[in-house]
């Protein structure tokens, strides 16, 4: 296991310490908890946004804490949902009196832990509501299963709901717009290499030099299918057809595009993916309103990428355009 760490047991604590040391202008850490909140939390009168999940997805989630996005990021152990008491502390620390929206990715563990925290907060008289993000089209949706996972599309929920809250939206309004994003966002991912959970010390799966995993999530879990290595354009073609089959679009529709690296894949390759994505959209007469290429929702050192499309209307466009100032997502 080749990692620049000191001790697998404390990677999350040490990471958060390094993060608040880097960005004291943006964030502070709650003493005794792996929770990062806005440096100026609680912001009086503003609806507060709390997100989080297992660690290993950096810059998610603490990197999105700041003006115009999240009020708190709660960090569980690597790839493990945080516990209700942590989330509860986060809620208490950021509630500015206007209520708190929990942005949850659709994993059984995350949903249960956040819900328990929400119940705890409500018992203390804090107004709490939640949304569950499920953008991953790799997973067949079915009433018999838990539905789709939440992956990189979650960052759009942070951005847009964050802008609405920053603009003074009520808890209900912020929730409504968050759900609009969730309804209109779809992603799909793949991986070329596995990753190693520090405390496990071994790769989560093995894969041949000429193979890749399609339908990869962000937790080192195997994808939905294994195939021979494909060219970048073939990967994009496959993703786009899955996404557009699930969320049909027409000429004149507008989208935001996110090409997200899982971390081991260099930016060069992400741009090569984006080249094809933009060609396909142009070919269909779909207008690209904004594109984001980078590492937004990672999976430790895994090589791989995902593509996310968010269908936009005027409201979403203006909220996407609103300024944001966080360690990992800035917009002037």
């Amino acid at each position, binding site marked *: 296991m080749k990692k620049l760490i000191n001790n697998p047991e404390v990677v999350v604590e040490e990471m958060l310490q390094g993060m608040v040391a880097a960005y004291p202008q943006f964030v502070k850490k709650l003493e005794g908890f792996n929770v990062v909140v806005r440096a100026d939390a609680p912001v009086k009168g503003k609806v507060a946004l709390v997100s989080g999940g*297992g660690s290993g997805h950096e810059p998610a989630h603490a990197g999105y804490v700041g003006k115009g996005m999240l009020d708190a990021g709660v960090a569980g152990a690597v*790839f*493990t949902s945080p516990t209700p008491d942590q989330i509860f502390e986060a809620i208490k620390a950021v509630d500015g009196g206007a209520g708190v929206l929990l942005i949850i990715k659709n994993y059984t*563990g995350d949903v*249960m832990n956040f819900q328990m925290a929400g119940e705890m907060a409500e018992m203390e008289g804090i107004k709490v509501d939640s949304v569950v993000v499920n953008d991953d089209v790799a997973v067949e949706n079915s009433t018999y299963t838990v539905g789709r996972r939440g992956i990189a599309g979650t960052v759009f929920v942070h951005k847009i709901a964050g802008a609405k809250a920053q603009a003074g939206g009520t808890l209900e309004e912020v929730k409504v717009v968050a759900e609009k994003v969730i309804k209109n966002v779809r992603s799909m991912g793949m991986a070329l290499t596995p990753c190693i*959970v520090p405390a*496990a010390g071994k790769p989560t*799966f093995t894969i041949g030099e000429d193979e890749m995993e399609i339908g990869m999530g962000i937790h080192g*879990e195997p994808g939905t299918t294994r195939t021979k290595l494909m060219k970048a354009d073939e990967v994009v073609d496959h993703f786009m057809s899955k996404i557009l089959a699930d969320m049909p679009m027409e000429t004149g529709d507008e989208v935001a595009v996110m090409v997200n690296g899982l971390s081991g894949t260099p930016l060069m390759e992400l741009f090569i993916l984006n080249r094809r994505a933009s060609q396909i959209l142009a070919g269909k007469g779909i207008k690209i309103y904004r594109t984001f290429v980078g590492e937004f929702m990672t999976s430790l050192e895994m090589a791989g990428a995902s593509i996310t499309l968010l269908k936009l209307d005027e409201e979403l466009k203006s909220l996407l355009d609103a300024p944001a100032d966080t360690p990992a997502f800035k917009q002037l």
Partner: protein
Amino acid sequence: MTVDSAKLIEIIEAMADKITENREYLTQLDSAIGDADHGINMSKGFRAVVGKISGMAEKDCGAILKTVGMTLVSNVGGASGPLYGTAFMRAGQAVAGKTALDFNDLISVLEAALEGIKDRGKAEKGEKTIVDALEPAVEALKMHREEGSRVALREAVEAARRGMEYTKEILARKGRASYLGERSVGHQDPGATSSYIMLEALTARLLEGKQS
């Protein structure tokens, strides 16, 4: 059989030992169809539990179980934290105030635990989860209740083992493994396995030195 608070603590410590012994094994099962953390999370949780309950021999059994549940909830995380946490908290409620548990109490404890898991996780048998080991165990316990605790417990552990084995054959419909669809078939469920391990530890401790 009777389990007083001291004995209950011993049982829980035995469970903790077994979970820790099986840390790598459970994690390995979870890497095949999940995210390679089940053993890590559970052993971290039980380490905290052991620290919390060691001085609780004066407390009643309900309080001890409730403490176990709360400690798991706030230390395990992931899916298994809330699930096992709720299970132990509900178990504690079922025997609130009691300083000793008889066999019927034990059945109530396990029934309550199972209900807790099903309420929290909304899973049914056959979905490749904890329920697949725990529910058959509870059923066996009730079915063999009249034959005495020794027989009933042995049947329960055996039922849990079969349930755990059966998870290899089925497709996951709940939890992280469900994202794998058909690819989840052929792999044993980590949560069903940890349930079996805990039940086995419980039974072994209860039947220790017991004649019939």
